[in-house]
């Protein structure tokens, strides 16, 4: 097995790339384990954003002057970077949005307008983040359609048998998460997509957590839509991507109207621009999009294989360490998982533990993680979640473990 070090993965150098990591909180070194909420930005991304704003800022797609030509060029190059990163067939399939939530809302709206009618069904899963539930609920309400839910088992895995039974002639789309932000489970999305496609049903994959950790190849998955956020993959906030198969996107109406997404406008009739511009109304967050591309470039430079191996090591270690704490119950323990660990401590409210960990410099997330149905499934009000990425270390897992033991001491 190739050790990450041999592949040039230097954890100390990587941590120096992220300016925010070196700080102290409450006079203790920051142990940042809330990457499921948002990730930090490497110097390369921060510098790109600063440079854009200092030297190159200009409106895209509209101007004829030097700055605008340059910026348009960089924006479209960013689109190509994203295309390559997720292995989409064409950059017409890459739409820049405000984030995963914006992407899913947009896809749900447009798809719904064209294909969902009264009595139709939309299928989601019990482990969805609210951003992949509420837009579909809203759609179903608008159209008089029905929202159905694929259940999970107590290991936090999808019950695939249910999927087969729930797909029927009225099912219009399946929307599911690639990797759960509260359970850590990586779903068998390729299998689900194959099953759905056998019945002619398209699938939207919400990939915000997954892109952080693993390779996403949309052609290999054969998904019809894929949504993710820039800020979860070391890029800036306010940007994200909706990938859609070109043929599908051609058929769909836009979800926002305004400038740049039009071809010809009169009060009688407006025609729309070609892909991908049809779905990018107004002045998009072009600086954010280019920032996202620079984050993807940074990741490729670090080396995706080294990242994966380091995270695999973190998962292995954390599972052992956390598993060894008496009174700690992991929520969801699927064999195929990302480095996200949700747990409860016996007799202790997650909020209390989280507050104590915070004062030890350890940043975790407590609560429902915007997945209330998951909490309901397990009959709890919330968990403590530690979510790690490639700039976290084994020492930080140790710090977490020590912190939890201390919190248990104080609270039990």
């Amino acid at each position: 097995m190739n050790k990450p070090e041999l592949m040039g993965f230097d954890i100390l150098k990587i941590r120096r790339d992220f300016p925010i990591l070196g700080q102290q909180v409450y006079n203790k070194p920051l142990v940042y384990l809330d990457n499921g909420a948002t990730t930090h930005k490497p110097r390369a991304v921060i510098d790109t954003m600063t440079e854009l704003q200092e030297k190159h800022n200009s409106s895209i797609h509209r101007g004829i002057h030097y700055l605008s030509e340059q910026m348009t060029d960089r924006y479209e190059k960013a689109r190509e970077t994203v295309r390559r990163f997720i292995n989409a067939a064409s950059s017409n399939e890459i739409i820049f949005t405000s984030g995963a939530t914006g992407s899913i809302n947009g896809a749900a709206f447009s798809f719904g307008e064209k294909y969902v009618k009264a009595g139709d069904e939309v299928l989601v899963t019990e482990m969805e983040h609210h951003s992949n539930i509420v837009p579909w609920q809203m759609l179903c309400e608008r159209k008089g359609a029905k929202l159905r839910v694929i259940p999970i088992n107590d290991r936090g895995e999808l019950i695939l048998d249910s999927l087969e039974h729930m797909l029927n002639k009225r099912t219009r789309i399946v929307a599911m998460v690639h990797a759960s932000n509260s359970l850590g489970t990586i779903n068998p999305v390729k299998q689900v997509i194959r099953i759905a496609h056998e019945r002619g049903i398209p699938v939207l994959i919400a990939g915000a957590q997954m892109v952080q950790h693993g390779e996403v190849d949309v052609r290999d998955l054969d998904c019809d839509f894929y949504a993710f956020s820039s800020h979860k993959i070391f890029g800036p906030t306010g940007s994200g991507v909706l990938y859609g198969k070109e043929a599908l996107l051609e058929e769909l109406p836009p979800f926002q109207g305004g400038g740049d997404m039009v071809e010809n406008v009169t009060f009688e009739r407006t025609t729309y621009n070609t892909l991908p511009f049809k779905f990018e109304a107004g002045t998009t967050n072009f600086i954010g999009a280019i920032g996202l591309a620079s984050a993807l470039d940074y990741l490729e430079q670090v080396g995706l294989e080294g990242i994966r191996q380091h995270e695999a090591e973190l998962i292995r270690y954390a599972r052992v360490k956390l598993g060894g704490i008496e009174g700690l119950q992991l929520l969801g323990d699927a064999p195929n998982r990302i480095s996200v660990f949700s747990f409860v401590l016996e007799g202790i409210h997650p909020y209390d533990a989280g507050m104590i960990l915070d004062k030890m410099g350890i940043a975790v997330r407590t609560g429902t993680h915007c997945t209330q149905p998951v909490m309901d499934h397990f009959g709890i009000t919330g968990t403590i979640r530690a979510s790690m990425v490639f700039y976290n270390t084994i020492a930080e897992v140790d710090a977490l473990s020590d912190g939890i033991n201390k919190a248990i001491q104080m609270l039990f």
Partner: protein
Amino acid sequence: MTLKETQKDIVEEFSVYEDWLDKYNYLIELGNELPLMDPAYKNNEYLISGCQSKVWLHAEMKEGKIEFQADSDAIIVKGIVALLVKVMSGRTPEEILGNDLFFIDEIGLRQNLSPTRSNGLLAMVKKMRLYAMAYQAKQQKSNGK
């Protein structure tokens, strides 16, 4: 002791603790010492829920003073709840409305009452003031008869 004096006492008690974990230990103690809330009131009617933790609050007017009973499912929150009850309970509506809760800032717990901290505490303080306003209005009405 006035409401102000009670707060000053609390600030002094906390001043011995510089370390956050010591402060929390003390709050946990206070939370454990808080008299049990009448189980009849620990229901949805008196629930002020935040996203992270639950807070229950019951108020009753007795001889011109408001008696509060409160609880939380998170022990650190319960400690702060205990302090709020200590300060605000057994006071007239005028005392409650006429005083601000400076002790929170001074013991360093402002972050717990910020709107972003959805632990129910900010809502609880608001509710306590609302009760005071309601009782005051009721009092004035019956005085005016």
